[in-house]
């Protein structure tokens, strides 16, 4: 299964812009499972098993808060975006 993870703002310094993952699975996996393949990432963006405040994880542009959180299903070809807290005008 191919999944793309893209990073933005301060997260790019640590993880680069983009990681193309090639997972050796046939059925859908959770967001948590996918992100665990990036060293240190879950420790940085989660606390007590949940996403830290104002961090955003999107699957194909939809915020996982309105799907199944970190248990949201990821399928072949999906794009995950990870944003740290940010704002502007």
């Amino acid at each position, binding site marked *: 299964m191919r999944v793309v993870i*893209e990073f*933005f*703002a*301060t997260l*790019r310094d640590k993880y680069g*812009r983009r990681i193309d993952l090639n997972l050796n699975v046939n059925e859908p996996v959770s967001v948590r499972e996918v992100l665990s393949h990036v060293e240190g990432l879950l420790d940085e963006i989660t606390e007590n098993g949940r996403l830290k*405040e*104002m961090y*955003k994880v*999107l699957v*194909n*542009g*939809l*915020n996982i*808060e*309105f799907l199944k959180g970190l248990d949201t299903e990821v399928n072949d070809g999906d794009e995950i*975006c990870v*944003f*740290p*807290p*940010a*704002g*502007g*005008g």
Partner: protein
Amino acid sequence: MSKSIIERFVEGEILPGGYMGKFLRVNLTDGTLRDETLPDEVLRNWIGGRGLGVYLMLKEVDPKVDPFSPDNKLFILTGPLTGTAAPESGRWCSVTKSPLTGTIHDSQSGGKWGPELKFAGYDGIIIEGASEKPVYLWIHDGKAEIRDAKHLWGKDTHATTDMIIEELGDKNIKVMCIGPAGENLVRFACLINDKGRAAGRGGHGAVMGSKKLKAIAVRGTMKPAIADEDRFREAVKVNVDKLKKSPVTGEALPKYGTAVLVNIINKHGILPTRNFQTGVHPTADKYSGETIAEKILVRRVPCWGCIIACGRYTKVAVGEGDGPEYETVWAFGAQTGTDDLTAICKANYLCNELGLDTISMGHVIGTLMELYEKGKVPIEKLRGLEPKWGNGEAIVELTWRTAYRSGIGDDLAEGAKRLAEKYGAPEVAMVVRGQELPAYDPRGAQGHGLGYATSNRGGCHLRAYMIAPEVLGVPQLVDRFEVKGKAELVKTFQDGFAVIDSLILCKFNTFATWVEDWVGMLAGATGFDYSVNDLNTIGERIWNAERVFNILAFGDGRQYDTLPRRLLVEPMPEGPARGYTVKLSEMLNEYYKLRGWIDGRPTRAKLEELGLKELADRLEREGLLPS
């Protein structure tokens, strides 16, 4: 002749702190200058800035006035917190009747100019009439004079600033001025201060140009007094702590500036692309905050009294200057189908120098590009230019032509609505109340759409910045595709932002603090005993008064609380927000109920509740009061 602060103090009057205690009335027709005070009751009920502006507009300006007539006024205002230790208090605003929208219009700006006006001894300037010849205003340590500006007329904002500073011989003078765009009455010409900050939207620069007022130079060594030092200091500490602790104001915004939003908004599928034809611009990262920081950032720039420092000073091969901000890179980027950062920056620097609102300028170029795509534009008017999507050179060239109303630039200078109407395709104009929509497609942020539709000053993202809860998760995340509960959020934001625009503080405070945090600073500074409820009421009062001005001006109401047809009936064609339109009427009905309005107009009961009985009477006299 009104008394000075010193006279009132000596006579034992308890003065409100925060304020300097006087306003300057400038009549450009007869060249007179007069110091004035406002009753404490007025200051207490309207605070300053935007609130005071609507009070003065309703008192002194006929809502039906032609914005370019000498009878329109320009109110240049600070608030009691401007230039104090309150965080992010380096701001000022302009209030007038806009030549773009025909509405009451306030435009807010940062930089250093606002505090300097207070240090020069004034809370604000009331500009009325019109001069026959170009002039500028020089205000310093409690004194003011009108000076000849013949040598400045025609100069851009940078040259104007440099020449005034040299002429008056003090490099610490701060200058606010118009460029050629304002002189040429471009309907979205802006006011530029400190060379690169702008009271951007709504054409205040054109109003100033119509009065032949080129610039206002300020310099001072005075300081606003604080009524209750302990209470003030305590409250400031609380606010500063929250700002420092917030990851938004403490990390992302300082490092990447406002353009950190480019990738966020694009990945949510709501970056308006090619005039809102879609919400996804695949190469947007080329002009994102991350790319700007990496490739072209020279230094960060804070406004006066700011601990965030989100401002940018950048340099590219063909120029350098302040910015570009998020709205700017969107307007010259996705809106025109361009991803060339050099062209985007050049257009941005030009707007600073020529005195043009970057949002409207880029947006209107996109309007032209769609008209051109549809074959609506007579080729001879373009004089060889090809306004095709993604043509970076055309963007820069069109900015020049607009400032000087040259050829097709003359049509662009009228704004998107008039441009599209002229060329027989009014549906192409993505405007609300005649003002061009900014950098978020509301089909993927329903509440933000309600904010756009109900904005008193036309298409604006800052009357109710619903992107904060719907996308950024501040103060907490709400479902952007839902309509339930959005009306209440919009009203809360609109009222709260009316307060912050009156204090005046930077809206980026709101990523960390809200009304209940500001009340201590305002009460401490002024000595007026405000409660949180008082401030919320003032916010509501300001919002309602603005709506009343518009009703008197052009019969504002439900038919204007709407969105361009494209956003209401054309589903988003691709991306995460695919298939959505804005479900406006459901949110609107709930909004009116919460506001105590009928069909977009306040009832007598609501106005009297807010202490605005005379406004209810005025509406009734003209048959405009809903029953």
